[in-house]
C-alpha cells in the first residue's frame, strides 16, 4: 500500500489502515518525543497524543510533504509544549517547597551503584545544557542526535533552508561546548 493510499483509507475511517500507520511510525514518534522529554513513559504518553491528533487532522494533511515529516512536526510540538509545562510545574513545586519549608526532595540514590550515579549525573548535566539552548537550535540538534535525521530531513521538518540547519546545529554544538567546558574544566 502506498503512503497516499494508506492516508486515504485512514481518512475513510478504515481502522486497520490506522493501525498500520501507527505500527509503521510508532517507534519513530516515541523516539522523537523521548529525545525531547528524556523519559520513556512520558514519551509513550506524548506519542499517544500525537496519533490521536493524526487521526483528528489527517483529512487536513495535504500530502505535499511526506507523512513522516508531518509526524515529526506534531511530535516536536507536543514535546516542546510538554517540556514547558514541566518547567512550570517544577517552578511551582520549588516555590511550594520554599514557602512550605519542606525543603527540596533529595532523591535517594543509596540503591544505585557509583557508576549509575555518575551516569545519572552526566545525563542531568547534558540535559541541562541542551535545555539551555535556544529553541530552534535545540530542535535541530535533538532531531540530528537522537533521531539521526539528516540535515536535509531536518530542514524539511523545520521548514527552513539547509544552510540554516547547518548553522543551527553548529551553534548548538558551540553552546553545548561552552557549557560543558565550563563545567568540566579543572
Amino acid at each position, binding site marked *: 500500500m502506498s503512503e497516499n493510499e494508506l492516508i486515504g483509507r485512514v481518512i475513510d*475511517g478504515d*481502522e486497520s489502515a490506522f*493501525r498500520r500507520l*501507527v*505500527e509503521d511510525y*510508532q*517507534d519513530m514518534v*516515541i*523516539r522523537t518525543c*523521548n*529525545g525531547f522529554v*528524556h523519559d*520513556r513513559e512520558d*514519551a*509513550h504518553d506524548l*506519542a*499517544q497524543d500525537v*496519533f*490521536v491528533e493524526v*487521526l*483528528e487532522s489527517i*483529512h*487536513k494533511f*495535504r500530502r*505535499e*510533504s511526506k507523512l513522516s515529516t508531518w509526524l515529526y*512536526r*506534531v511530535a516536536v*510540538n507536543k514535546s*516542546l*509544549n510538554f517540556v*514547558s*509545562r514541566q518547567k*512550570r510545574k517544577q*517552578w*511551582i513545586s520549588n*516555590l*511550594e517547597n520554599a*514557602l*512550605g519549608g519542606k525543603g527540596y526532595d533529595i532523591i535517594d540514590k543509596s540503591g544505585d551503584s557509583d557508576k549509575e550515579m555518575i*551516569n545519572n549525573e*552526566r*545525563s542531568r*548535566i*547534558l540535559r541541562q545544557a541542551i535545555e539551555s539552548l535556544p529553541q530552534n537550535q535545540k530542535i535541530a540538534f535533538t532531531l540530528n*542526535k*537522537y*533521531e539521526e535525521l539528516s540535515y536535509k530531513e531536518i530542514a524539511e521538518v523545520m*521548514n527552513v533552508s539547509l544552510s540554516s540547519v547547518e548553522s543551527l546545529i553548529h551553534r548548538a*554544538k*558551540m553552546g*553545548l*561546548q561552552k557549557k*560543558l*567546558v565550563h563545567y*568540566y*574544566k*579543572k
Partner: protein
Amino acid sequence: MKCREVHNKIYFFIDNDLAEEEASHIREHIGQCDSCRHLYEEMMATVSVIEREKQVEINPFFYTRLQQHIQNNEPVYVRKPSLIRSLQWIPAALVIIGLVIGIILGNAYYKSWTYADTSDRSENIQSLKETYFIGEQETESLAYSFYNFENNEE
C-alpha cells in the same frame, strides 16, 4: 596548540567534525596536557550519554492502549472539525475572563497572601497554582504557530 584552542574545538573533535590536521593537533595536545585530557574524557563520557538514551524500548501494547485512549475519549473517528474548533475557543475565553477577574482581585489577593497564617498558606498556593496554569493556553498556541505556519506553506 594552547589549552584555550582545545576548549574551543573539543566538542567538534569528539564529534569528528574537524579536518584531520586539526584533529591531530588536538590529539597531540591531549596526550601531553593532563587538564585537557581530563576535560576530553569527561566530555566524551557525557556526550555518549546520548547514544545510551536514544535507545527506547517500545511498549508492545502501544496500539492497544491507543485504541482504548481513543474509545474512552470522544469518538475521534467521527470528524466534526468546525464544532471542535468552536468548542476550543471556550477554554480560551474562560482564560481571558479569568485573567481579568484575576487582575481585579489581584490587590485583595496579595493582601490575604501577605497576612495569611500558616494554615491558610496551602490554600493560597493552590490558587496560585491555578492562576499559573492559565498561561498554558498561551504557550500552547505559541508553540503551535510553528506547526500551523508550516501547514499554510504546504
